[in-house]
């Protein structure tokens, strides 16, 4: 159904001020200019299709973010370019979570030296982006919203329309995945050496 010109104007007035937010979020998910532009464009197309179902125009921001997230997840499926979506949320076990800190810190160093902080400082922006792009999209999405965009658990819960407890556990799992990737990169780049569950500084 075509939008009336009044509806087009309403949508435009509400979408354009949010374009920077949408663009930034899309970029953090894709890390590629072309994909970012396509993702935003596709999101806007879907928003046009669904605009009449949006009752409360005051809630357009979480509504658009939700569309962007759904669009991203389906683009991931189509293109198979980004990590495939696997849900293991239900059988997650807190003890199995990976912690970079636990792998790298050396408590016996006592008051001098912080190998874990040194490692984080040594990582390049590219390393972090790369690790982020390698974790499952659903988890990448919450980590980006929380850590990069600085949104609260409540705001994320509104965007994804899921309970705060689920946001909280998804962030924890996302960080665990991210830290495992960072650890693998660090080992690969020779920043740390894998040795049993400990490491030796090189």
């Amino acid at each position, binding site marked *: 159904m075509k939008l009336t010109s009044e509806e087009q104007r309403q949508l435009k007035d509400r*979408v354009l001020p949010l374009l*920077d937010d949408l663009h*930034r979020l899309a970029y953090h998910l894709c890390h590629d200019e072309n994909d970012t532009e396509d993702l935003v*464009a596709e999101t806007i*197309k879907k928003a046009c299709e669904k605009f009449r179902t949006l009752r409360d125009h005051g809630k357009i921001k979480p509504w658009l973010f939700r569309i962007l997230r759904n669009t991203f997840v389906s683009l991931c499926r189509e293109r198979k370019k980004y990590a495939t979506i696997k849900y293991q949320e239900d059988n997650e076990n807190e003890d199995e979570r990976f912690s970079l800190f636990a792998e790298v*810190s050396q408590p016996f160093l006592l008051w001098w030296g912080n190998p*874990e902080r040194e490692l*984080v400082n040594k990582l390049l922006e590219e390393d972090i982006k790369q690790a982020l792009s390698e974790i499952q999209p659903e988890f990448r999405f919450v980590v980006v919203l929380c*850590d990069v965009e600085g949104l609260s658990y409540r705001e994320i819960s509104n965007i994804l329309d899921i309970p705060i407890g689920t946001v909280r556990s998804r962030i924890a799992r996302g960080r665990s995945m991210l830290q495992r990737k960072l650890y693998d990169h660090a080992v690969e780049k020779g920043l740390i050496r894998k040795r049993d569950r400990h490491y030796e500084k090189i």
Partner: protein
Amino acid sequence: MKKSNHKNISCEEALKRVFDYIDDHIQNTSRDEFEYHIELCRHCFDRVEFEKLLKSRLQALRYKRSSEWLRERVEDIIAEF
């Protein structure tokens, strides 16, 4: 210095609150207990500093480019609907 009438929670308990703490999703007693613990426990303090540092590295990725260049494409899409 925090009031010392807070109970000292275990490291295991503190560990469960680290993300809540760095994400500012912790309040009142729970927060006070946590802060009291990390004042006393070097290991948990280091863990918090580490997670904060990593979070700050992610924050620094925040993309700054304006979306001005996308505006036209978006306006066209809306106009076509």
